[in-house]
């Protein structure tokens, strides 16, 4: 991703749309499939009749402007195409969306974008749970204000959620501390795991508060009224890059390896042919726990068929087959973790199957 480009698009967009500092702004990366883009005209004509006060202005080939005017209330969205490093290989175009307006109006415009087929990306939990570390590395102080989470539990093909809760930590310095001290005990006791939906935080630079922001699991950054825009735009490329990499992994079954040498950054695409899950607590206890689960032929949770191939010490190889799809992976366990490889004849490893395997080894491996 061209970092300066994306920052400039966001900065100019906000400067152009926001007349008043008291109005919140949200920024998000979105993906628009070519076939949905071709149907834009007919879709938008239909939507315009349904959404009161909506007007759409096609500024140029790569820019859209959506206006929502309902009496005194106004909201505006700028949709601008950005070219990531892999643009030519992607099946969709990538857009940066800047929406200025109050919450309800922003939601309306977001729904319009969804209706025309502009899909949002997502952030992995492992990224969200370490967002504060990313921010701190940019020489800023992070103060967690609230954390919206869901308790989830895998049950076969689907997960069940035990409802959404909001958590206002007090005297907590990092997300990790909030999770470990307050939330993980709930997770362990009830067999659920914590799924973070959004984070609201305050940023402090050189001892001075610069503003309040929130980031959700869809990678949407919201800038609260009277908050500094430039500070959060410094973090935008990192979030955008993470979203883009997740999208590539999902759509193309490739993972992105990034090499950074001084100011040069190179990206390698590697076939997602191998996934490594490191043990939370490496050692023989971990290995024996894994051996108990996959060391004998069985069916886990009526979903994963387990066929051991080689059960030794300190190495165990098992074949895991998804009962619903027939997809197969080879699992190699050692004292340090678990490696997953597609079984011969299988094209890749399905994200849903990885989720199921993760659920099987919950609490034993890191995400």
């Amino acid at each position, binding site marked *: 991703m061209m970092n300066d480009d994306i920052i400039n698009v966001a900065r100019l967009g906000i400067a152009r749309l926001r007349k008043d500092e008291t109005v919140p702004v949200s920024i998000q990366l979105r993906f628009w499939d070519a076939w949905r883009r071709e149907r834009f005209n007919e879709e938008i004509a239909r939507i315009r009749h349904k959404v009161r006060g909506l007007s759409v202005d096609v500024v140029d080939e790569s820019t859209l402007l959506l206006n929502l005017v309902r009496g005194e209330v106004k909201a505006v969205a700028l949709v601008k195409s950005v070219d990531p490093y892999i643009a030519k290989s992607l099946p969709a175009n990538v857009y940066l969306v800047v929406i200025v307006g109050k919450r309800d109006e922003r939601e309306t415009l977001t729904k319009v974008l969804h209706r025309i087929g502009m899909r949002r990306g997502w952030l992995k939990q492992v990224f969200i749970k370490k967002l504060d570390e990313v921010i701190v590395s940019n020489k800023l102080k992070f103060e967690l204000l609230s954390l919206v989470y869901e308790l989830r539990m895998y049950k076969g093909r689907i997960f069940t959620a035990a409802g959404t809760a909001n958590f206002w930590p007090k005297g907590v310095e990092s997300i990790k501390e909030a999770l470990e001290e307050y939330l993980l005990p709930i997770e362990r006791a009830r067999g659920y795991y914590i799924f973070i939906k959004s984070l609201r935080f305050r940023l402090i630079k050189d001892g001075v508060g610069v503003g309040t922001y929130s980031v959700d699991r869809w990678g949407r950054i919201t800038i609260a009224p009277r908050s500094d825009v430039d500070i959060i735009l410094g973090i935008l490329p990192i979030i955008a890059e993470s979203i883009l990499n997740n999208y590539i992994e999902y759509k193309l079954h490739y993972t992105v390896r990034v090499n950074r040498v001084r100011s040069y950054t190179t990206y*390698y695409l590697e*076939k997602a042919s191998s996934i490594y899950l490191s043990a939370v607590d490496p050692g023989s206890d971990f290995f024996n726990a894994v051996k108990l689960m996959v060391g004998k*032929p069985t*069916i886990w949770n009526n979903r994963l068929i387990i066929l051991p191939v080689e059960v030794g010490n300190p190495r165990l190889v098992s074949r895991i087959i998804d009962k619903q799809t027939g997809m197969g992976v080879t699992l190699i366990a050692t004292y340090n973790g678990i490696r997953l490889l597609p079984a011969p004849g299988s094209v890749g490893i399905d994200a849903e199957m990885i989720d199921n395997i993760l659920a099987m080894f919950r609490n034993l491996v890191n995400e």
Partner: protein
Amino acid sequence: MSSEIKIKCRNPHEFLISIIYSLSYASRKAGPVLHRSLLGLGYIFVALDIPSVFNMPAPDFLLVNTRRKIVVAVECKGDTVEDRKLKKKFSDPVEDAIKSVVQDDRNEYKIEFVIHTFDIFANHYTHVAHNISEELGKDVLIWTTTAVPQVMADSATGGTAEYYTLRKYTSQNYSVKHYDNELERLLAQGILISESDIACNPLVDPDVEYKVLFYELSEYTLRAALSDKYRGRRIRVVEFTNDIKRDYQSIVKIDRLIGVITDIFEVFPELGEIKRSSMEIVFKKRPRINEEFIKKFDDIRKTIINKSESEAKKYIRELKTRRRK
């Protein structure tokens, strides 16, 4: 097997083929490849059945680069053999057969012959390659893979992993270059492949044992029976074997595959049945895959793989007779 060799797969020959297979096998899903490997340079693993089509001995597989119009014919040798056994595989008729299988009507492709062996045998094969090139008038290159893996730091795990190195062999007496400079550079530097990234593929060996075929294909059939593509469908046996050949890049003869597939369906009727009159496979709509079946399935596969070849065949015959009764 030599005691100096430490490998992952069932035998050295399968291991050497699997190393290249893991570095050059392109799945059906198209996508960008920028990774530094044989596949990254556009060399795709192709196991075309030259021996059965043209009735002549041929190298184990081809690496075909359609963009650069280069075919690398690779013969893997897990042990030392005399040059007279290899000459036929690198002969002119074989070169013509390769040209016809890659449909090189315009004579655009350059064909290179490679012997892939372990580093400990490199010296022996230098003499072999020298003799072949003198007699046939064509260069033969040597690629080597380390016989023993090297323990190195693994950035993914934070621990260590065992790596094998594939490189082109050169010495003071022997130095032949590839047409493709990038391939030459890549192989001169050496390609590292971690032990866990090597996908052992027994079906790339045309002479694979029956018991290994049964072991591997029974699992493939189980996966197929559960997949949306086959579940509840009726398909021709040949179509199924073609899928196997494509997915494994196998050069095992179709007749052998059909024989094993027929045995698998007779031993595990829970997956489906073969209609002998029309030679079709009817996959079950709702295959009964429960704990009991999985235990039986695993038990039969483990028993067969641990038996000798003749005992394994006898065991399957007994199982089939028991089922028919």
